[in-house]
């Protein structure tokens, strides 16, 4: 929880009614999601950004606008933004309070749900009222964007946190649990904003994917949504739910929210846009029906312990990307469909230019091993297999043989300890961490059993380093130390 903060702030910050001393909206940690490339062409004139927004995005918008105004509800956030953007006018408080100072903006962007706009100092208002408060700050015919969170989105239904029970900042807001005016479907959103255009977003309030529900190819949409929603840690598995939802034709029910736009001078023409490490990528692939995300299919094959199918999958994938020019080999950026006994892959993004086909395939295999092991998904390898050995088994299936344990540890990403709107240290995650540790313990136990048998054999033979008790003790110590240091 936020502690009491000093009431000091930069000169460009103005406290208005509702300014909250005890609130911070800046996410912990801040993820690399950058939409300025998409937003800048929409911005003109006096521009207001409502709700916490990354300073990189604000800076780019500020350069495109005649004036940049930012409205947040917490003093800490306002001070930080004010210090980072001295040219901006930063307001801290309730949107209704701002009308006394400034209104009739040419552009109003509210990229957070309005539940993150109403300050706790203000009287309770409904979602609809706050949304109207924000939009009232725009002049008639202004360019607007407002993100609406889906209260039944995938990020909510897979979260083990109960917002009714939790008391942390992330789990409490002043309107969520008792608001009845919030639209809960795409149709309801369209009805709530007549004349506007609504896009769907994934995976949570820090969305990294925007899609046009009408024009996005269903298979490509499912693939990118699944990729966007791979939770960094465990818990109810969003990918499993989305994969099934896509097959059931119900993907759109699980979006994290809707981006509602009006009067955009540069409408979003592409079916989908993805934020990829600081840049926005347009996605317009048309994929045949039955095409599914490659990493999802791979996870299903290993979970069912179908080694021959995994072998065919990996061999076909490896053959596809043995030569450059076919796009990235990364499985989360591939889709696949079965044809006869084989698998046909389609890459959804270009390959990195600075990597050989071999390096890219190894990195892709390392990524998928990390993905499966870090989430404790079922797989086909015994408990005594290290992650490196799993990787090498896949390397052999791919025909690229093996790598050293040191190289393997570079290739396999370790389990992330951050969260992005999905659950982090919840009970299933902790149980999964215990399962992972148990697998490691089993591996070590196996290796120790082998060492113990070997010691017994040498001792029985009265040979080798065990001729004297001291030598024997040193030998055992070296063996155990070696095993534990792996």
């Amino acid at each position: 929880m936020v502690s009491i903060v000093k009431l000091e702030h930069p000169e460009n910050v103005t406290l208005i009614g509702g300014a909250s001393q005890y609130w911070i909206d800046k996410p912990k940690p801040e993820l690399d999601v950058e939409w300025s490339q998409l937003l800048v062409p929409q911005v003109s004139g006096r521009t207001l950004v409502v709700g916490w927004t990354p300073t990189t995005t604000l800076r780019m918008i500020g350069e495109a606008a005649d004036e940049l105004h930012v409205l947040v509800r917490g003093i800490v956030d306002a001070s930080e933004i004010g210090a980072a953007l001295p040219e901006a006018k930063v307001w801290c408080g309730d949107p209704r309070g701002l009308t006394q100072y400034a209104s009739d903006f040419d552009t109003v962007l509210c990229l957070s749900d309005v539940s993150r706009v109403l300050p706790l100092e203000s009287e309770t208002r409904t979602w609809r009222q706050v949304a109207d408060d924000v939009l009232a700050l725009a002049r008639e015919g202004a360019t607007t964007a407002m993100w609406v969170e889906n209260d039944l989105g995938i990020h909510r239904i897979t979260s083990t946190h109960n917002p009714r029970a939790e008391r942390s900042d992330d789990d409490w807001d002043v309107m969520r649990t008792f608001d009845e005016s919030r639209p809960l479907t795409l149709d309801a959103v369209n009805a709530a904003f007549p004349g506007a255009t609504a896009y769907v977003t994934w995976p949570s309030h820090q969305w990294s994917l925007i899609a046009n529900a009408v024009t996005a190819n269903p298979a490509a949409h499912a693939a990118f949504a699944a990729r966007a929603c791979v939770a960094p840690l465990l818990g109810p598995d969003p990918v499993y739910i989305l994969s099934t939802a896509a097959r059931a034709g119900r993907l759109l029910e699980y979006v994290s929210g809707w981006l509602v736009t009006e009067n955009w001078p540069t409408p979003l023409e592409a079916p989908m846009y993805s934020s990829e490490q600081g840049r926005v990528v347009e996605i317009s692939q048309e994929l045949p029906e039955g095409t599914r995300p490659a990493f999802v299919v791979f996870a299903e094959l290993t979970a069912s312990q179908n080694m021959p199918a995994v072998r065919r999958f990996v061999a076909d994938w490896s053959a596809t990307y043995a030569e450059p020019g076919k796009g990235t080999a990364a499985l989360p950026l591939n889709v696949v469909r079965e044809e006869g006994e084989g698998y046909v892959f389609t890459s959804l993004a270009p390959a990195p230019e600075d990597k050989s086909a071999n390096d890219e395939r190894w990195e892709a295999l390392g990524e998928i091993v990390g993905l499966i092991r870090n989430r404790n998904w079922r797989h086909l390898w015994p408990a005594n297999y290290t992650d490196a050995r799993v990787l090498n088994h896949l390397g052999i299936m791919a025909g690229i043989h093996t790598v050293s344990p040191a190289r393997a540890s570079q290739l396999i990403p370790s389990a992330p300890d951050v969260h992005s709107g999905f659950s982090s240290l919840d009970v299933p995650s902790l149980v999964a961490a215990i399962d992972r540790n148990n697998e490691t313990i089993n591996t070590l136990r196996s290796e120790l059993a082998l060492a113990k048998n070997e010691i017994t054999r040498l001792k029985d033979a009265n040979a080798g380093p065990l001729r004297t008790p001291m030598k024997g003790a040193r030998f055992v110590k070296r063996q155990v130390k070696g095993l534990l240091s792996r």
Partner: protein
Amino acid sequence: MDRLTAMDSSNHWYGHAHVLARWCGLDEENPPPVEGVIQHGWTFVHGFGAAHKPPAGRPKLAWSDVCRRRGEAIGWSDYVVIGSPFAYLEAHVEPDPEQERHGTIWYPFHGTADFENVVGDHQRLIDEIRDVEGDDVTVCLYYVEYEDPTVRRFYEESGFRVICHGHRGTLWEGTDRLFLHKQLGEMRRHKKVASNRLSSAVLYGALTGAEVGVYGDPMDFPAVKDGFNGEPLFHAWWPYMFGETIDREAAEALARIELGADLLVPPEELKHILGWTNG
């Protein structure tokens, strides 16, 4: 590290480790220690015998996926399905195109050296075999019965050709590493493979393309462990596998599944799985 003593000794039975070493291009006379435990016979349970407790955390190298599923149903884990060593041999050793199949090789159901004996009327079985197959019959006895003069005499005096594929081996001693080679050779020489119980031999025969038959007194198996006598289940699961003549294609299809003949692991990968490579 020399892992010889760490290997489960049953991996050497019937020369299984030797066959797999051959498949992997290694010295088949001295196979490296196998990491894990290879299923050593066809079974309707989890891949392992009643007295065999594969160690937790080590790979259980099962012949077929159904064994893995049964094992996981009782809480076991760490299965890797690799197929049966006999299927590797059958795939690896080309048949002699000149050889014509004739007669029947008959496998009386066998006991084990360790625990169980088979008890029954061998003379009555011999009479039944002659009635069905005629005189061109080779009887293959398991080494336990082959070395029992009383049992062996029955078959020798019947006028049938009597053979034995060799010793299974115990604790790395006495293994006839060519056991399966001899069995494959004999099965390819004969037109039909038969037994009085559905067993590894019948499925091996079906895999080689021989006709198969399962008939005659199955005899008693008094010391069998609870839950390890599959006779009643076999009749329920595969009624078509019983009789003097059996649908050959159906038998081969079942054999391919039970012996994992379509699941064989390529050599480089199998070496990795068996712990015969670094990393």
